């Protein structure tokens, strides 16, 4: 009833009726881009506020309370402040790379949304290599962090950039391998097909057939998004702020934005691949629109990520690498082997 797909279909038909085909393509491309940017921005605004509230209540304080009801305008106020800030570029910085690093980070974070189904039919492009595309595009973040770390001409930034390169590349391996189990069962790389296969009751969700794969994915994804306990690239107590130590104003805000977008991305992937995507946990709950289910599951996952952050200390860089290569990677392989046996036997 409240499904959004018919609305978009209607808009598409209207555009087709008044514009030539070429312009329809252009308009719908920019339109979807704008919608995704807008929706994601709203999510980020909400997440920043929510994280502050979650952490505050875990730490027995209130968090922002003054700007609006329970401080809900706080992120907007902070955004306005960041817009007004002086935009510093260090004298010895590599200017071009320095300016482009946040842009690359921002764009890389957003590109993943091309193949994420937000609800039934709510997907920009259902690529037949959907998962592969997402894995490839999310790793792109590392380039921007390296660019930022190098171009800032600051030793702390450099250390942070190097750390992020090492970390993200290491965790990319178990992350990719952990998804192979799902791909083996689903026999497709398309995000929509994977979700469709998980229809019905919640025990059809792949998390119950791939528990190990999910655990490996979730831990590796936490590391990919630079969240505590794996936030060593920007470890405040060690590297001051890591790769973004020299960034201020909107350029810093773009890194910040990308971090929260990444949080939503990894949650969305987890929901799509392991938690039935837009499906309700039970068929009789289908009267609630699919996009609400999807967003609800994502928020739950984001909450868990926040919970991690405000509970755990940070691991050390060598422990982080050892964990990736000596524990996560074998576990991911074991998962693939077990899945293989499972498919062979049943």
């Amino acid at each position, binding site marked *: 009833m409240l499904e959004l797909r018919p609305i978009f279909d209607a808009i598409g038909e209207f555009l087709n009726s008044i514009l030539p085909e070429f312009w329809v393509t252009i308009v719908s491309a920019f339109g979807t881009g704008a919608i995704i940017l807008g929706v994601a921005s709203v999510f980020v605004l909400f997440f920043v506020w929510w994280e502050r509230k979650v952490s505050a209540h875990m730490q027995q304080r209130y968090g922002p309370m003054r700007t609006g009801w329970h401080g809900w305008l706080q992120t907007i106020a902070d955004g306005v402040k960041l817009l007004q800030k002086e935009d510093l570029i260090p004298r010895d910085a590599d200017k071009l790379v320095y300016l482009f690093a946040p842009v690359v980070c921002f764009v890389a974070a957003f590109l993943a949304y091309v193949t994420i189904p937000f609800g039934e039919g709510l997907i920009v492009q259902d690529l037949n290599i959907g998962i592969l595309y997402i894995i490839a595009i999310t790793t792109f973040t590392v380039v921007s962090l390296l660019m930022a770390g190098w171009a800032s001409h600051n030793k702390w930034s450099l250390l942070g950039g190097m750390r992020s390169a090492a970390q993200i590349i290491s965790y990319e391996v178990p992350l990719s391998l952990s998804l192979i189990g799902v791909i083996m069962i689903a026999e497709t790389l398309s995000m929509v097909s994977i979700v469709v296969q998980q229809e019905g009751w919640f025990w059809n969700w792949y998390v119950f057939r791939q528990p190990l794969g999910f655990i490996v994915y979730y831990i590796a994804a936490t590391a990919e998004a630079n969240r505590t306990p794996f936030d060593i690239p920007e470890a405040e*107590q060690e590297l001051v702020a890591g790769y973004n130590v020299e960034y201020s104003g909107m350029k810093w805000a773009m890194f910040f934005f990308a971090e929260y977008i990444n949080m939503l991305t990894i949650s969305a992937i987890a929901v799509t691949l392991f938690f039935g995507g837009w499906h309700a946990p039970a068929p009789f709950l289908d009267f609630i629109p699919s996009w609400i289910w999807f967003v609800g599951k994502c928020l739950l996952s984001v909450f868990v990520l926040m919970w991690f952050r405000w509970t755990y200390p940070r691991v050390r860089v060598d422990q982080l690498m050892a964990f990736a290569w000596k524990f996560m990677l074998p576990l991911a392989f074991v998962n693939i082997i077990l899945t293989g046996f499972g498919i062979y036997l049943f």
Partner: protein
Amino acid sequence: MSVKQLRTEEMLINMGPQHPSTHGVCKLVIKMDGEEVKYIQPHVGFLHRSIEKIAENRNYPQFVPYTDRIDYCASMNANHAYVVAAEKLGDVEIPERAEYLRVIMAELNRIASHLVWLATFTIDLGAVTPFLYAFREREDILDLFEMTCGQRLTYNYMTIGGVGWDIPKEFEPKLRQFLKIFPSRIDDYEDLLTNNPIFLHRTKGVGVLPKETAYEYSVSGPSLRGSGVKWDIRKAEPYSIYDKFDFDIPIGTEGDAWDRYKVRLQELRESAKIVEQAIDGLPGGDFKKKVPLTWKPPEGEVFCRIEAPRGEMAYHIISDGTPKPYRMKIRTASFCNLQVLPIIGVNHMIADLVAIFGSLDIILPEVDR
């Protein structure tokens, strides 16, 4: 380009004076080989206020507020060290109630100081939440101090001859309530940290301080006890009335950051025990003996040390019979403890260096004075 042509060099970094985890204004010049720290040189003195020289121009009772500023996390203990030394110099007998109040305040401040340490140490390891839990309990103690002497950080509470003010009547119920809940709160910290595998990995075997090195560098306090030396001035050469109380001295075995953590957590419990005994046995009577502002101790010198939260704090006062000291030397624990950092911190990752620095519990005003 062949491998031979690739030049690698150690990276020289100034860690501080503006750095989130140097606990004030300490500057560490470090040389790093990748992530590994190869050389550490602490630069101190950013907070030097020449307190020892100021002492030569102040009357004895006037100097008490300056002692607050030597260790602002444990002002009561810094007060205590000075007044004990001055009273020993002038042979001043003080009322018993004052001794009890001093012990209560000193031990409460020790708890508060260790809580600040716990808070900052966990933040150094990247865990933010225990910080606020520890500060929650510290807040209760600061409330107690505030109702007694009106201050929350620099108390100026103890005077030569006793304490400045008596405790108000709502002090005792609030203190008892605090003592009742405090052990369970320590259990909370332990739940969050002690069995946390990440915390264990970050502290076990990190920054091992061998007993011999600790002796050589005159390390004291919990950092020394973490290395397995049972040395506490409160037991070894009791000052004030510490010989009347029953408490244990917790010690570690390995001397790593983990042991220093465990020792301090145990000390929280022991200090609470002392406070409980002291409030139970608090006698009535006077809380101070009048000492004039132009109090003149006899000619001579005195060396007196106490156990501050960070280790031994000692005052060496030389008197020439005038109302002002001829010379005063203050020995603080942080200054000595900081000197082992280059020894135990090298060949560790930079993240470990932060953890070691945190585990030594160094406070910069005490280093620089």
